[in-house]
């Protein structure tokens, strides 16, 4: 899923996507365990989670300890992945519906990651640490994240804001997992809030965005046979946190209309328009669809994690107390009545999106004449009000419920052809020792996440859930059922993008806090009860619309075969240049080559060819281009952006593909090899 732009059609791969599974269990009670998944996807999803749970159930009794309560499916919030895998209609629209291949790749891969984690279970220890991610040279300069809606953040009470140094959380928290027998670390799980929007809206190459870069760098650094600290199978999870109003475009938002001025502070517009206003990443001048900025922000997270990891050798908090618990239920947020912190009775509303939702953000501006900070009466073309009426005119009750949000899309009350967004939402907490993980279905803003964590911490401390140890609370998401954003009540009133996308009205955050604090006692070490499961959400995988066309057939051009060279490499390249080769190709969707690679760089070492780069490497790019839909011909270009530190030597590039035969539809594997070239 990208930027909800139907023109953003995939054209290749920059870096493969992964599911990283972390399983923690009680040594004395094997049935008490939890699974935290970090997927290189935009978010979790109702149907993806359901598919994973079904798959676990089909694996038999050995996997019977995993279920609704203790499996958390989080996404890193990358905006550079394939779409067409989500359950509800709204995110399907710009991806031309639902695609089983995309969906199954995620579900099957997630299952496989859980199986691998399960099969590797062994006694171990957990430790926890945290660090600020900022440049020590100029601590006022944004380093890895900034707030992209500071005008809304300023609406929070001054005394609350005064508790914090920044309008984003600059703290990276890390859980370190160590095998008790070998003493080696088997992985780390970090939380740090920054949007996966480093790759720009004109990018069409698959990647895990900046968190995918960070995870890959960390694993390659520590999966080193000579490393005595880390296990060969070391896994690094870079989980998303209270990401809602964060941005990796740390240089700020400027007008790309030639003026070069900073965007309007309140509405992020340029001369009254949203489209020209765009956030700038560290290397925004590079014409590479954001790739350099993406790698830079990923590298900054990796660098901070690596330093924190080493620092924790000498100073960290042990996770203690054998209790491993989880609690989950489904809750209908379309009309949940509860007691507000001020004592009044309030309700959430059926889901709806405001006009400012269509304005987009500085990371990805929207279309037409929509603007952020649209409260009260709509300030866009009145034609949109008519369009809204064709879909569903919100009732006066619905409008009153949503208060300062002028409703553009009454998504929670549209059921034709099926629900556009969830009303039934996952509520989930995990606990390991004194660590409590809030599994958030939405993108909580900075202050929303802080309030939520503090509420859980205070309640856990007051009730003694974690015994003598002070509770440590982290927030991971967006997870499970994707519910867009969770802003504070005050930020909601400003109705920037994040407020307009807070689906269930102004009391959404307080509803989440109410429910999760209510469920905290289920995490008590002696508890064996579960809350009622709640209403089951609909699963639309078998009835979703799909206008994603399959692969018709592939043909090689006359006088050519699949895998033949069209344009070969040059004899020599220098570091920091790009080696490129073009092959006769075929549609990559014929074979996703999961757990394998489409392309590789091989180096000649001691007379034999050794793979040194593959799809997991950022510097190796696979591009596919259909040259003729009628003839079925296509080309594949393989590019190696040779690193400045790459070894001098002799190399070649490889490509593996699969073609679909006309008429019979038979899939035939093939490969291509470039000639040798030297890096000098």
């Amino acid at each position, binding site marked *: 899923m990208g930027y909800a732009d139907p023109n953003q059609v995939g054209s290749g*791969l920059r870096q493969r*996507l*992964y*599911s*990283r*599974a972390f*399983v*923690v269990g*009680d*040594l004395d009670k094997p049935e008490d*365990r939890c699974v935290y998944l970090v997927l290189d*996807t935009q978010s979790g999803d109702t149907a993806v989670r359901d598919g994973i749970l079904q798959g676990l159930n089909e694996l038999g009794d050995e996997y019977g300890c995993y279920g609704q309560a203790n499996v958390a499916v989080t996404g890193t919030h990358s905006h550079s992945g*394939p779409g067409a895998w989500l359950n509800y209609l709204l995110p399907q629209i710009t991806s031309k519906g639902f*695609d089983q291949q995309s969906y199954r*790749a995620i579900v099957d*891969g*997630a*299952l496989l*990651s859980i199986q691998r*984690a*399960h*099969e590797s*279970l*062994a*006694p*171990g*220890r*957990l*430790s*926890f*640490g*945290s*660090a*600020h*991610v900022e440049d020590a*040279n100029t*601590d006022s300069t944004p380093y890895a994240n900034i707030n992209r809606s500071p005008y809304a953040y300023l609406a929070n009470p001054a005394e609350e804001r005064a508790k914090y140094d920044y309008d984003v959380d600059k703290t990276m928290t890390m859980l370190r*997992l*160590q*095998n008790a027998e070998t003493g080696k670390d*088997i*992985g780390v799980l970090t939380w740090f809030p920054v949007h996966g929007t480093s790759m720009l809206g004109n990018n069409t190459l698959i990647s895990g965005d900046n968190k995918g870069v960070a995870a890959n760098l960390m*694993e390659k*650094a520590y999966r*080193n046979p000579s490393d005595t600290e880390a296990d060969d*199978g070391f*896994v690094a999870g870079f989980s998303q946190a209270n990401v809602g109003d964060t941005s990796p475009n740390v240089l700020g938002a400027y007008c790309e209309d030639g003026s070069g001025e900073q965007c309007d502070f309140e509405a992020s517009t340029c001369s009254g328009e949203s489209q020209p206003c765009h956030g700038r990443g560290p290397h925004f001048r590079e014409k590479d669809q954001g790739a350099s900025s993406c790698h830079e922000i990923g*590298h*900054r997270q990796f*660098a901070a994690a690596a330093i924190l990891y080493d*620092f924790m050798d000498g*100073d*960290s*908090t*042990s*996770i*203690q*107390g*054998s209790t491993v618990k989880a609690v989950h239920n489904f809750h209908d947020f379309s009309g949940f009545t509860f007691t507000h912190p001020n004592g009044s009775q309030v309700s959430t509303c059926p889901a709806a999106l405001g006009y400012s939702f269509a304005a987009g953000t500085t990371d990805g501006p929207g279309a037409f004449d929509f603007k952020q900070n649209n409260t009260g009466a709509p300030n866009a073309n009145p034609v949109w009000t008519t369009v809204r009426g064709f879909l569903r005119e919100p009732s006066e009750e619905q409008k009153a419920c949503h208060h300062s949000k002028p409703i553009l899309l009454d998504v929670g009350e549209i059921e034709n052809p099926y629900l556009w967004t969830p009303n039934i939402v996952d509520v989930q907490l995990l606990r390991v020792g004194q660590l409590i993980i809030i599994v958030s279905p939405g993108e909580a803003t900075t202050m929303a996440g802080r309030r939520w964590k503090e509420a859980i911490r205070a309640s856990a401390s007051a009730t003694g859930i974690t015994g003598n140890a002070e509770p440590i609370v982290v927030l991971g998401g967006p997870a499970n059922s994707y519910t867009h954003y969770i802003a504070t009540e005050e930020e909601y009133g400003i109705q920037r993008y994040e407020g307009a996308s807070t689906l269930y009205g102004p009391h959404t955050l307080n509803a989440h806090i109410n429910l999760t604090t209510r469920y905290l006692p289920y995490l008590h070490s002696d508890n064996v009860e579960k809350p009622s499961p709640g209403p089951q959400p609909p699963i639309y995988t078998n009835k979703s619309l799909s206008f994603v066309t399959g692969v018709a057939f592939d043909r090689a051009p006359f006088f050519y075969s699949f895998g033949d060279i069209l344009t070969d490499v040059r004899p020599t390249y220098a570091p920091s240049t790009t080696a490129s080769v073009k092959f006769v190709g075929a549609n990559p969707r014929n074979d996703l080559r*999961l757990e394998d690679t489409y392309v590789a760089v091989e180096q000649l070492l001691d007379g034999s060819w050794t793979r040194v780069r593959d799809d997991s490497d950022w510097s190796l790019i696979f591009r596919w281009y259909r040259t003729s839909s009628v003839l079925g011909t296509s080309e594949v270009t393989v590019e190696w952006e040779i690193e400045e530190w790459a070894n001098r030597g002799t190399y070649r590039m490889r490509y593996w593909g699969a073609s679909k035969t006309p008429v019979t539809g038979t899939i035939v594997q093939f490969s291509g090899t470039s000639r040798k070239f030297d890096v000098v």
Partner: protein
Amino acid sequence: MIVHIEDGPLPRIEEMARAHILAALTAATVTLLVAFHLISAIGLPQLDFLHLRYEDERPRIPQVPIAPLSAEPSPDAEGTSDDQTRYLLGVGKADITG
């Protein structure tokens, strides 16, 4: 053209070159003697070619300074690793590129 080399006192340049060669040889001999003595005393350094190569290939942890870290103080700072609670732990990774 045939160049005749006649016997007699060496030209000044040749004399200087021979003197420099002598100095260089002397310096080299002294260096070798010192190295031999050090190796005898300390031993040869171990060459781990593979390790060096992997170092080149690994993403380098940058020297960019990060703000001073502040890990949470450990309540068990006095305790040994044997006092730490043990859990069942497992990690896994798999491809989901659709």
